[in-house]
């Protein structure tokens, strides 16, 4: 352990020569949706702060978030949130040492994509 090679280890594959596959796509999308959740969190905290401020300001912010553009952003947020939730669930499954075979990982990848869409439609129906 003390003599471990610390300078000449293999590098990650370069993006330019890396063949795109479901695993890399679902992985980068998990990162993108995670980062994007900051935007959603800012909007929700803004809405809460508006509710705590007063009726006039609340109606302005609530109106913006339920406008057509607001609806699009909030729907995209829900889709991203469900996708990232399922992506996290896949990581938790992987952490137990299960589902690491290529076909199992691919199956979970498709399940994440379709699951996120189904959960988003369900959310729109209920909410």
């Amino acid at each position: 352990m003390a003599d471990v090679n610390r300078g000449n280890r293999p590098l990650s594959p370069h993006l330019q020569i890396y063949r795109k596959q479901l695993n890399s796509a679902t992985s980068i999308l998990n990162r993108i949706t995670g980062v994007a959740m900051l935007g959603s969190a800012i909007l929700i905290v803004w809405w809460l702060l508006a509710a705590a401020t007063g009726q006039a300001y609340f109606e302005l912010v609530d109106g913006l978030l339920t406008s057509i553009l607001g609806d699009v952003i909030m729907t995209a947020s829900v889709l991203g949130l469900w996708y990232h939730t399922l992506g996290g669930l896949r990581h938790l499954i992987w952490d137990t040492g299960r589902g690491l075979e290529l076909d199992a990982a691919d199956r979970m990848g498709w399940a994440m994509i379709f699951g996120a869409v189904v959960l988003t439609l369900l959310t729109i129906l209920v909410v």
Partner: protein
Amino acid sequence: MKFATDRKRVVGLGSAGSGTGHFWTMTVTSVALLALTPIFVFTFGPLLGQPYEAVIVALGHPLRALIMALMIIVGLHHFRLGIQTVIEDYTGGLTRKASLIAFSIISYGLMATGLFAIAKLAF
């Protein structure tokens, strides 16, 4: 030539200096969010677009206030650690340090703002 023994390397908790602390906190917060996320979505979602009075009454309820507060605390803690991984993957040197500090301010600032709003509505 390395003079440090194997034990000495472990005692310092590895090159990150914190062992698996970051990984484990991400695991714990993600399990928590697995339960919190659906509860939050179906608590906050129906309130969006409701009249002001209805929202004030709804968020005055302790259970809803707790759900909102928990989602903001755990969610933004998870975000703060997640964005750290992203920053450490793509940046180095001063940019990395400045970005880590900036996103800590954003994460905890947003958390404090959200909790202030929830507290004001609840009391």
